[in-house]
């Protein structure tokens, strides 16, 4: 089964989404991330969506759910690389994404 790779850097997990994910892949990623946070007692998750030019409500909800699960597990989630055209569009669709912190890549 195809999976999006999750990398570990110290106490943090990093995932770079580089493909136009179909829904099953997004659900698998959410499950994988949650499992890894638990297994490795991660302090945080960094989700890089700089390659995504479409973030619809399903993906938005996947990211929000991951962040919520991470919070329950005492880990923080940071989303980086939201393309400007995606920001406007995604906020129309998924208001929960406004709760996530945004960081500019250095």
């Amino acid at each position, binding site marked *: 089964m195809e999976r999006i790779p999750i990398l570990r850097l110290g106490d943090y997990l990093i995932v770079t989404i580089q493909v*136009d*994910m*179909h*829904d*099953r*892949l997004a659900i698998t990623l959410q499950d994988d991330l949650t499992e890894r946070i638990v297994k490795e007692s991660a302090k945080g998750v960094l989700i890089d969506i700089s390659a995504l*030019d*479409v*973030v*619809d*409500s*399903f993906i938005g*909800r996947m990211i929000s759910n991951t962040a919520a699960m991470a919070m329950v597990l005492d880990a923080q989630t940071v989303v980086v690389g939201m*393309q400007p*055209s*995606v920001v*406007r*569009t*995604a906020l*129309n*669709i*998924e*208001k929960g994404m406004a709760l996530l912190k945004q960081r500019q890549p250095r």
Partner: protein
Amino acid sequence: MMNSNDTTGRLAAQSSLRSDEEIVRLRQIVRDAAIAQGFSLIEQTKFVTAASELARNTLQHGGGGDARLEVLTRGARVGLRLTFVDQGPGIADIERALQDGFTSGNGLGLGLGGSRRLCDEFTIESTQGNGTTVTITIWKVR
């Protein structure tokens, strides 16, 4: 409802929507068409995002269906129209389904309200037990 007397449409693409992969493929088809017609990046993104929402609805709530993409001309203006059709259970209360935050029983939002906001024109026809047809249209800003 829009006046279609002076609008002509040419079928550009058709796709069945019966699997996750076909939703991804439709996004790519719509993106390519929007680029080919010279839409700006933000216009492309809004339309593809709305298309993705509605394609997912067709698959998950409509039990699978089809999408048609047309290139429209109205005088000198160019537009794109996507029509989503399914023969599924239909929507009993359309007004409610269009409200933000509305979710069906399995927790997935229908994204209808969001899709409407992203597009210039939006129509929906649905009766319980009789399927659903949704169209979205964007017009290129000159």
